[in-house]
């Protein structure tokens, strides 16, 4: 079972985060201030931390840079009321792994937490990714199904790579947009749907994994076995 640490001062928001994490099978520890949060994080044993950027006693940035300077590499999802791009950059630069602005949907939150858990360790370079009968060669930028090459456009390739890295995992529109195009705003529903639609057509057939749309939330690459 994964263990999560929630550092959040607003009780209702904290409760929502805790409930969502619990219902996704996490064992959760909640601390309502920075001091307790920091000591809980330092004592270790957590797989992921959600951290409010603005706490009554500490700044979230202080907590995270303290953790990183102590060599604690637990993935951290920062949650902030500050949506400014500069703030995001600050948050990520001080050691945060992902950044979510309030108000957020818990679906988005849990999706990001799950992705953080699966993040490959830094420094480990992989060459091949496989889900079901789909195989990707990251160096040659090629996709093959049972030995047959399927041509993909660069964008489609990036999309599929992200899906395959997080197979079986819900990924949201903004996460995709961030990972594939590199921008941090919501481009609207339609446009990502269309890109997914194109990719879906290229990889469908046989018993290949399919990209399912989860209404109002995002997409999942699911194997058909």
């Amino acid at each position, binding site marked *: 079972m994964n263990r999560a640490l929630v550092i959040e001062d607003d009780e209702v928001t904290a409760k929502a985060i805790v409930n969502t994490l619990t219902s996704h099978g996490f064992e959760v520890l909640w601390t309502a201030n920075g001091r307790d949060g920091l000591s809980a994080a330092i004592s270790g044993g957590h797989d992921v931390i959600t951290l409010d950027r603005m706490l009554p006693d500490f700044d979230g940035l202080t907590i995270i840079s303290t953790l990183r300077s102590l060599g604690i590499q637990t993935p951290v999802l920062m949650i902030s009321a500050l949506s400014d791009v500069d703030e995001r950059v600050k948050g990520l630069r001080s050691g945060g792994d992902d950044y979510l602005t309030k108000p957020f949907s818990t679906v988005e939150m849990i999706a990001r937490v799950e992705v953080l858990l699966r993040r490959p360790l830094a420094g480990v370079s992989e060459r091949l990714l496989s889900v079901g009968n789909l195989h990707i060669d990251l160096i040659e930028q090629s996709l093959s199904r049972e030995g047959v090459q399927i041509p993909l456009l660069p964008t489609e390739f990036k999309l599929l790579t992200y899906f395959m890295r997080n197979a079986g995992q819900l990924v949201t529109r903004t996460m995709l947009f961030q990972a594939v195009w590199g921008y941090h705003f*919501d481009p609207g529903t339609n446009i990502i749907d269309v890109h997914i639609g194109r990719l879906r057509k290229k990889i469908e057939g046989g018993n290949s994994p399919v990209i399912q749309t989860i209404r109002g939330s995002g997409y999942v690459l699911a194997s058909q076995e």
Partner: protein
Amino acid sequence: MQRAHYYQKIDDASLKDELAASEVYSTSGIDAYGLFEADGTHIAGDLLRLRASLPGDGQVHYLERGLSIALPREQTRSSHALMQHRDDGRILILSRDGGSISAVGGIIEQALFWGFSLTLIPGLIGWWLLRRRPLRRVQRLQSCTESIVSGNLGERLPLSPRRDELDMLANAVNVMLEHIEQLMHEVKGACDGIAHDLRTPLTRLRAHLDQLQQLPLDSSHAETLNMALEESESIMLRFQGLLRISELEDTRRRSGFESFQPAALITQAHEFFEPLAQEQGLTLLLEISADLPALSGDVSLLFEALVNLLDNAIKFTPEGGVIHFRGYLAGNSLNIEVSDNGPGIPEEERESVIRRLYRVDSTRQQPGHGLGLSLVSAIVRLHGFVLSIQESPRGCGATVSIICPLPEVKASLAAPS
């Protein structure tokens, strides 16, 4: 004239003696007379010769040139004269010299001229000298106001130690600026406050709805819940859009600027939108001139601006339409232009569409929240670019361009000032 009347009454015989006698009393050199025989022979008086141009009608005439006169001068200057035929056939001429009067006139004229020039020339020099200083001050005030207009609200007009009228005015403006800044702070504070106060309840609302969704619900409840979720999603989108715009309107925020290649950005936006355009039965044509120079800006924001422009164009162009997406050099600026052949934007609404939440009446039924163009406008302003909305050259549809002045032009404009 009076003299003429007087002499007329005197009988011809005593005239000569009378004239001689009056000469004693008359101002010498000014009044003169001449008595002549009918054939013009001089009998008596200082005037020596008849003058043909003087009519013998007994009226006073003005003579430009003088009459011949005995000493002290040979000729009067201009004079008033009168010629009279006496009953006995003699001719009497009386004259009053205008020369000294005109001489006085001349003196006065000269005095006026010199007096005038002596005051006017130093006056002009003084004016120029005095004007230089206030002019420089006004120029300083002007550059200062420009800086304030461009968003630097903390700036104040410079005051001189002289405490003159200009300073009084500048001071009044400064007090006003102080007020405006305070009001702006209050408004911004109120906005930020509202934003902050709304963030938490919105987060909670979302959380509650999400939790509901995880419960087993029957289908009609689930449907209502889904609608509630969608509504809350749209509220959050609008809310975040508003927050982003107010962040962007704080124009001092330029920390994220870096040099980038506009061609790459345009190509990426085109690739991003091409599938959507195709799906909607539209043609999205990309035209990029070769060798577009690099620009400085926040790539992420500019991409967002392009996404909004293209999204609008696709939304409002009917099926089968063509959208031109172009990047080209025009004079000293680089234009990024989205031109569609949809319904266009009526001229009178072009200003309003960049206001927050404004939507052209005829588009109310379309999805969207009316923040797109105002967001674009805020982004464009942050970069010092210009957003222009025009009718498409093909006569229908809208052409929205982002006009980016090129850096070297900016530099050369800045250099002389």
